[in-house]
């Protein structure tokens, strides 16, 4: 029987060294709410667990010139309790807080939600809509990459063996801009998204949309950025024409699967509805900021 190794490096450099030098399969541990389930069920059989939580700054939130830097392993509950972050990025925070129960929120992290690479990850569409980036450490130094470049398919990421995410950066908020995330689940709580929609908008003083990002979750192998959805919103107020065009664009971007939570047809229809409703919330929030 092989032995599972465990390392808890206390610096980024040590963590990279451990990951680069690992023989066999190494798994990066943040909150562990997905990793432990997979470990216990035997779905993954790593040789080494690299726990990042002893690295200073890996958990916690700081502001840098109006931008927010969220440590990769910061628990969802901590993100939800951060008043300034909630004010600036309500969509990112509500998406993060939808993950699991109170207990899961005590551990679950953005890095885990992203790197677990579930198509239905709730925080991911909201992060992409927010133009969030990941700060990634690796053997060749640190790099910054957009969140949408990380997940390549269910359970797969573009991170190299020696790389791990150390933080997420949410850009400085522009005036009259806000985001929202909505998901549809068959229950009221504690379920996996049938469809998720993250929308981020900026309005001008007259309420016309000048910038938008539309992102859908759970309707394709990865979260999908929908530029046609953004185009439907930009240059308009949230009138019926814009909403109808957004609905069409959202449906057009879906490549879902049939499963017990929803059929292909149902997911496509609901994607349009969720996009419209999330857009309405984002607009209302942005409008209140005038």
């Amino acid at each position, binding site marked *: 029987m092989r032995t599972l190794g465990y390392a*808890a490096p206390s610096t980024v450099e040590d963590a990279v060294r451990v990951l680069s030098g690992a023989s066999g399969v190494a798994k990066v541990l943040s909150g562990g709410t997905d990793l432990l389930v997979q470990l216990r069920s035997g779905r993954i059989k790593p040789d080494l667990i690299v726990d990042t939580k002893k690295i200073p700054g890996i958990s916690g939130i700081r502001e840098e010139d109006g931008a927010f830097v969220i440590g990769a392993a910061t628990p969802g509950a901590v993100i939800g309790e951060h008043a300034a972050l909630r004010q600036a990025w309500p969509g990112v925070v509500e998406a993060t807080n939808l993950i699991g129960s109170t207990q899961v929120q005590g551990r679950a992290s953005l890095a885990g939600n992203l790197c677990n690479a579930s198509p239905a990850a709730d925080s991911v569409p909201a992060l992409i809509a927010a133009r969030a980036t990941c700060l990634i450490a690796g053997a060749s130094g640190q790099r910054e990459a957009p969140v949408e470049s990380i997940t390549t398919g269910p359970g797969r990421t573009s991170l190299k063996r020696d790389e791990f995410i150390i933080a997420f950066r949410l850009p400085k908020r522009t005036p009259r801009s806000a985001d929202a995330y909505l998901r549809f689940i068959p229950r009221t709580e504690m379920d996996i998204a049938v469809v998720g929609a993250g929308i981020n908008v900026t309005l001008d003083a007259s309420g016309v949309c000048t910038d938008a990002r539309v992102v859908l979750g759970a309707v394709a192998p990865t979260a999908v950025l929908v530029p046609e959805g953004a185009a439907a919103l930009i240059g308009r107020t949230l009138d019926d024409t814009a909403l109808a065009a957004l609905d069409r664009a959202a449906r057009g971007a879906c490549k879902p699967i049939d499963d017990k939570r929803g059929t292909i047809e149902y997911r496509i229809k609901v994607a349009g509805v969720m996009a419209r409703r999330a857009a309405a919330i984002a607009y209302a929030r942005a409008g209140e900021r005038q």
Partner: protein
Amino acid sequence: MSKHHVTTTINGEPTEFLCEAQLTLLDVLRDELRLTGSKEGCSSGDCGACSVMVDGRLVCSCLMLAVEAEGHAIETVEGMAHGHDLHPLQRKFLEHAALQCGFCTPGVLVAAKALLERNPDPTETEARYWLAGNLCRCTGYDKIIRAVLDAATEMRAT
């Protein structure tokens, strides 16, 4: 098999143990430290029967490796009563008969205590959402919620 030496605090007591990397905190609490109040229900973070506090945060001890406890303060259901003095939540659970088989009860108590520590006056909706990660297959939840809200009322008065 190499074992890890872990130094932690459990219910206020400095506690050390040796464990293999794959063991969860729940495994060690129950099998090594004989704190069998925390229960193993689903082992996947869905049922909440293994709920404990880690540095004041409610977590599932089945979703945490025991080695991750190094340097942290753990509180379990065993720390709720002081000798024969039950915690108000424990008393109210008895008064309201808020349990039948009792398997979920330790987890519900730990989770409810965490709720009342941060929100001494929760609405029924708030209590139900907070406890959504604690599954009970006997009571239908109604008596649990009544016991929690009654305990909250009593704790606010004292």
